[in-house]
């Protein structure tokens, strides 16, 4: 059965509404805000939070750290992936690093990193470490997957390295990069916030989430979680748009 774009959007909205209704019903059944607050009380708490200056400062603190970490990882991953594609020895050297970062639990890395740096910049380092292997692996896969026949043509036609990067490698890597960007941003947010909850840097979203937990303010916990989900979603949309737009401009 074919579903038109309009009805598909309506169905998706209906699915969200359905689960909100399930949440509201479960909250009524439990009847205890401490265990499961109603959607209504979470929205009310969110509205109150939006009016507080501290909310915006905490959000700004966490956003700036996670974005810093994300950009650091993005640049490092793209440079190292290109080097790995060009130099087999460098690829072998990078392989254990990427495997170890990927396999180590976030909590272990957080504790370890806390030994070396202050908790203020913890979320930047942690989100960078989580994002790096995803972007690195995907960009490398994109470069490796470049059509060998196109590369042979470029050799025969004497295409310069800069033009190869612009018109052959970037279009080849782009689909891999975009799919990794989406996963990496989500993971960057989740690991960054988890790091803040463990490291408790002053004035961060993680600290607010932790405070909500120890003061048993479940509506606050839910409200902050909603904020994190919305921020992660918005950043994903913006980054995917910017990445496709820039790649389109470069290869035009």
């Amino acid at each position, binding site marked *: 059965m074919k579903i038109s774009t309009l009805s598909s959007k309506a169905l998706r909205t209906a699915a969200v509404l359905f689960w909100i209704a399930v949440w509201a019903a479960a909250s009524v059944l439990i009847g205890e805000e401490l265990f499961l607050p109603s959607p209504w009380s979470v929205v009310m708490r969110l509205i109150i939070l939006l009016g507080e200056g501290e909310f915006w400062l905490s959000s700004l603190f966490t956003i700036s750290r996670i974005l810093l970490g994300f950009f650091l990882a993005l640049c490092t991953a793209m440079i190292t992936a290109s080097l790995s594609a060009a130099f087999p020895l460098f690829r072998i050297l990078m392989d254990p690093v990427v495997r170890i970062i990927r396999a180590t639990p976030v909590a272990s890395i957080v504790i370890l990193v806390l030994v070396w740096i202050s908790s203020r910049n913890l979320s930047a380092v942690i989100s960078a470490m989580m994002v790096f292997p995803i972007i690195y692996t995907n960009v490398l896969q994109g470069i490796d997957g470049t*059509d060998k*026949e*196109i590369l*042979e*043509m*470029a050799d*025969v*036609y*004497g*295409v310069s390295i800069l*033009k*190869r990067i612009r*018109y*052959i490698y970037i*279009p*080849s890597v*782009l*689909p891999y990069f975009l799919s990794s960007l989406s996963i990496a941003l989500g993971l960057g947010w989740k690991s960054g916030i988890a790091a803040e909850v463990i490291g408790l840097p002053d004035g961060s979203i993680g600290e607010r989430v932790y405070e909500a937990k120890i003061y048993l303010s479940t509506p606050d916990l839910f409200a902050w979680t909603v904020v994190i989900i919305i921020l992660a979603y918005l950043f994903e949309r913006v980054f995917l748009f910017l990445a496709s737009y820039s790649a389109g401009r470069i*290869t*035009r």
Partner: protein
Amino acid sequence: MKVRIDRKAFGDEVIFSGVSFDIPDGKCTAVLGPSGSGKTTLLRILSGLDRDYEGTSENLPVRPVILFQEDRLVENINAISNLMLVAKDRKTAEEALAASGLGEDGRKVVRELSGGMRRKLAIARFLFPEGDALFLDEPFRALDDESRREAAERILKHRNGRTMVYITHDPDDLSILGADFTIHLS
């Protein structure tokens, strides 16, 4: 160009055994034969792209320019960007695009182009590099009669006295591109 092939095989399948080819400089040579007779393999050996065979070669071109059987276009960028790979600037690329009859479709992403349009684009790109010998593998694949004639005219003009070797299985190609010599593979 002289090539002596004692043995050329892909796995157990022997393509050439104990044959030699002598391609005169500055002349146009057509290679004819049915599918699977080794035409493309021979073209790759003559152009120096394939050196994985037992035998010897002399005077192979230093800068061969090849129109591959496959279009070898970058699928997810537009036609002009494909020409920008070899053109010195956008103006030159746009002129080449217009000359190939693809002016209006230059902004389209390659995967949206028809088989004929893609071949025209591949030919337009082939006409950019200044090599010392031209090699064409089924140059007019997917083109209609009129487009074939136009493309042949532009290729012959671009050739400018250089050695040219082309592969075809269509006798009509012989009449429009001409040939000083022919090689028949069986």
